[in-house]
Structures are given as structure tokens and as C-alpha cells.
């Protein structure tokens, strides 16, 4: 088995390494101490099993999860994160609460191994991400992949988010990015005081509005600071009026 461990604490990584050493079914172990490194390893090393910590610098384990698009068995490790634990309970292969015993560790690994054999993959991590964010405060950054680069977009730099089939397109000060997510997710996760779904297919950042012009009797055109013109729906304009108070 090819295994990747992502954790920012050296002791935590070393412990897993020690536990793994005592097993005989491991072919190769790789280690990463942050999400960037971790994602690079996922792409290059193509691990079968991933031990993933939640609290990490720059991008969290949950954000990393949003970027994984290859099949892999994920075993989460965390010391204490009630949101994560609640999300895992519903959707994860397994999760280990630090500190964990060797027996518990082996059990999780065996479960992942048998999942591998029956090619029973978690093909969709979105559930975990959604459950996690639902309980938390609003997100304040979005992590996207652009080629092999990972880009972190602070939400205040977003102009608008548009739906495109199964994807969303995020227009921001740092560029246009595609993300495998839903409008519904963003509508729930972004602070409704800043972001309004003005149309079925568009969420805009109200702080980036340059002008609002009447377009027809009940519809408006919104011109954003980047020059983008957005149409509103009847419901959308009602929501916008509530926030902007006009």
C-alpha cells in the first residue's frame, strides 16, 4: 500500500510513521507537513491511503479535501474539532482522535485496506465539506486549483460567482477560477450580508457593485467594479434591496 501522511506537527507524523513501520503490508510512506506539499504529493505519488490532519497552516484538511479529485481512502486525524467530528461521523471512511492507540490505528487502516480491495471509494468528499461548513461560521477564503497551482482567494476579493453546469466560476481580483462545487453551497457558506444571489446563476459581492441600472420594469443590471454586467431576477432584486436598503 502507498500511504501519505499530512500533518503539521512533527510528533504526530512521526507517531504514524512508527505505527506504520510495524506493519508488513506497507510499500511506501510519504510525509507532508502542509496542504500545499500534501497536494503535490497526492498528484505525484498517487497514494492509496491518506492520513489527513484538519488544522494545518494555509489550507486546512477540509479545504484540501475539496481539491482532491483522485480516488483515495482518507483517514482523518484530529485532536479536537467538534465540527469535523460531526461531519466525519456521517460521511468519512474513518477518523482517529488524537491521541490514538496502535490498535485503533490498525483498525482504521484495515478498514481502508478492505475498502481498497472492494474498490469502495469515497468518491465524493463534498458531503463532509458541506457538513463541516454548515456548522461553522461563514467561510472567509476559497481554495481553488488552477492547473497545478493552488490559489487561495480571500472572499473580499471575489466579484461574483456564476454557475456553469456542474461547476462554478469564481471571478476575483486575482483572476477567474473554476471550482467543482455548487451555487447552493456558496449561498449557504458565504456571509449573506456581503454576498447575494441576485439570479439563479449568479451570486455577487455587494461590496463590488459599481452601479445598479434599471433594465426593464422589474429587472436591473448590476455593473460590478471589474466591468462585469450581471442581470437580476425578481427574487434577486428583493434580496439585494434588503441588504443595500434602497
Amino acid at each position, binding site marked *: 500500500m502507498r500511504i501519505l501522511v499530512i500533518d503539521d506537527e512533527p510528533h*504526530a507524523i512521526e507517531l504514524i510513521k512508527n505505527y506504520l513501520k510495524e506493519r508488513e503490508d506497507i510499500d511506501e510512506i510519504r510525509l507532508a507537513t502542509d496542504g*500545499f506539499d500534501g497536494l503535490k504529493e497526492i498528484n505525484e505519488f498517487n497514494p492509496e491511503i491518506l492520513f489527513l490532519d484538519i488544522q494545518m497552516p494555509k489550507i486546512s484538511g477540509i479545504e484540501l479535501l475539496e481539491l482532491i479529485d483522485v480516488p483515495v481512502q482518507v483517514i482523518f486525524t484530529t485532536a479536537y474539532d467538534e465540527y469535523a467530528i460531526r461531519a466525519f461521523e456521517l460521511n468519512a471512511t474513518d477518523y482517529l482522535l488524537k491521541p490514538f492507540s496502535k490498535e485503533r490505528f490498525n483498525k482504521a487502516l484495515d478498514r481502508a485496506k478492505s475498502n481498497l480491495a472492494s474498490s469502495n471509494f469515497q468518491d465524493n468528499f463534498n458531503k463532509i465539506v458541506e457538513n463541516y461548513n454548515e456548522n461553522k461560521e461563514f467561510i472567509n477564503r476559497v481554495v481553488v486549483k488552477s492547473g497545478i497551482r493552488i490559489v487561495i482567494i480571500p472572499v473580499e476579493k471575489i466579484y461574483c460567482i456564476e454557475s456553469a453546469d456542474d461547476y462554478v466560476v469564481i471571478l476575483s481580483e486575482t483572476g477567474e477560477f473554476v471550482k467543482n462545487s455548487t451555487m447552493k453551497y456558496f449561498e449557504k457558506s458565504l456571509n449573506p450580508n456581503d454576498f447575494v444571489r441576485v439570479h439563479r446563476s449568479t451570486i455577487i459581492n455587494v461590496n463590488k457593485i459599481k452601479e445598479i441600472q434599471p433594465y426593464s420594469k422589474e429587472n436591473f443590471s448590476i455593473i460590478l467594479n471589474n466591468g462585469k454586467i450581471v442581470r437580476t431576477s425578481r427574487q434577486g432584486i428583493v434580496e439585494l434591496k434588503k441588504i443595500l436598503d434602497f
Partner: protein
Amino acid sequence: MQNPFYNKNFTFSYLGITVIIITVYSVLVYFTLHVSWAVAVSESVISITLFAATGFGIWYVVKYNLSKTRLYEKIFLFIISGIMVVLVWFVFNMLFKSILIKLLGNNPGFIFNPLYHLSTGLFLFTILILVYQIIILFNKYAEKLKSEEMLKQNLAETKLNMLKAYINPHFLFNSLNSINFLIGTDNEKARVMIINLSEYFRSILKHKDQIFINFKEEYISALTYFKIEQERFGNKILFKDDIEESSYNSKIPVMILQPLFENIIKHAVSESLVAIEVYFKSYCDNDCLYILLENTYESEFTNQKKGTGLGLSSTFDRLYYIYNRRDLFQINKNEKKFSVLLKIPQKF
């Protein structure tokens, strides 16, 4: 403070007392000046009612006087306002009676003795001022009781929150995980960590009912916490301190330093890919203990909202509840460094 006439009870009592004084005054006038009952009563009604009406305004004199701090200013203001009030009252009193005489066609025996009236007026004025002063004192006392109660409640609340924060489960379980690794790999380090962890929790329990503590003890406790985190994060923390000898015996609110260190772990160390430099300095000056805690951070990508340090607001609150001052806590932030400066008054 509000004009007490806004209070219905006060207004009714005021009117009631006015009626009582009118009665007493009538009797007094009747027996001392040997006039008819009709004259005594009308004299009393006119004088006292007029004075009672002036009394509404005197409240503002008393209130304005509160803003003066020097005694001679207060006395001067009372004398001036007293003379003015009594004079105005006197003039109106005379005028009113003159009009009455005109209307009646003859003088039924009204008193026009300036000395008599002025001394009566001065007496009434003094009484009224005293009543107002008593009301103010009473209100102040009630307010003080209330604010003390609130302060106590807030202190209790922050204490509870502090305890919760101290027995920070994330910290505890991660430390135990570290120990779990160190056992068998580096027993000595594992032992040190267990000792540090125990000492840290023991110090929390020991001081949990105190408000103040010696700086030295508080610093050692916070440092024990920080040492555990240093061990957890390997070489990611570079720590330096500079403690002025004289600061050791200063008094400091208990558990005030640890959250500042924890803040660095949360927002700088665990959000950074490179090592973080931390610098702690303390010194005494002008009856104050100054504490500076400075750290570098990676500004890139660092969450702006997170970076403003929501955890620090509770430190600010506590200092405010304890010292009733808002200028004891300062945050400075630039591209590379984040620092907090605490000012702990030693005499208050």
C-alpha cells in the same frame, strides 16, 4: 442624572411635602405674627407655592454644581444661585401680593417685610438644596452598588471562560498525542512534557480563585504552556525574552498572559510554513508594569479576520472590568510583525 421630577413618586412626594410645609408655615405665621387665619393661610400658600415652583429649576443648579470639583467653586455657585433664587422669589412674592391687594381693593394685612421674607427664602433654599444633595448621594450609592454587582458578575463570567479556554481540549489532546509519540522514542522529552503539562494545569487550579498574582508566577505558568507548544511544533518557534528584574514582584491579573501566547500559536505558528520569532519583554515605569509580546507572522494568505485576534478582545475586556480603563491594551500590526502591549497599573 435625570431630573427627579421624571419620577412620578418623587413628584407626588414633592407636592405632598409642599402641602405639609404650607400648613406648618400657616400655623407659624398665625402664631408668630398674630394675623388673621385668612392672611396667614394666603401668605403661606403664595410664598410656598411660588418657592415650590422655583424648586424645579434649582435641581439644575445642583446638578451643574456636581461638575465642579473645587469646594470654593461649589460654595460660590450655591451662594450666587441662592441669592438669585431668593431674590426672584421675593420679587414675585411681593408682586403677587400687590396684585391681590389691587384686586381686593384693600390690604387685608399681607406682610411686606423684606428681612422676614429673605430669611424665610434662604431657609427654604437651603432645605431644598440639602434634599437634592441627599437624592444625588443616594442615587450614586445605588449606582455604585449596581456597577459593583455587574463587575463581579463579569469577573465571574470571564473566569469561567478563562477556565474553559485554559483546559483547551485541542491543546491537551495534541500534547497527549505528542507524548504518545515521545514514549519509547525519546523518554526524557516525554517526561519533560508530562511534567510541564502537569505543572501548567496545577498552576491553573491553584490560582483559579484569585484575581491578582505575582508577575513572576504568572509568567512561569504562561511559559510552561509555551514550552509545551514549542515541543509540539519542533523548531517552528524561536523565543527570546527580556525581563527587567523589578517587574517580578508586580501584581498582574491571573491568567492574563497565557491567552496572548496562545494567540501566537493559533494565528502565527499554526498558520505559517516558516519559523516564527517571538519576543517577550517586561519593565516597570511610573507605577505601571509594561508587557510587550511581539511575533513575526506570514502575512501572505493569512486570514484577515482571523488575524485581528478575536481571542484578544477577552483580554481587553478583563482589563477593563478589573481596572475600569480602556487604555491598558494596545495592538500593533504591520506587514511582518504583530505585537500587543499591556499596561498593568500597580496603584489604583
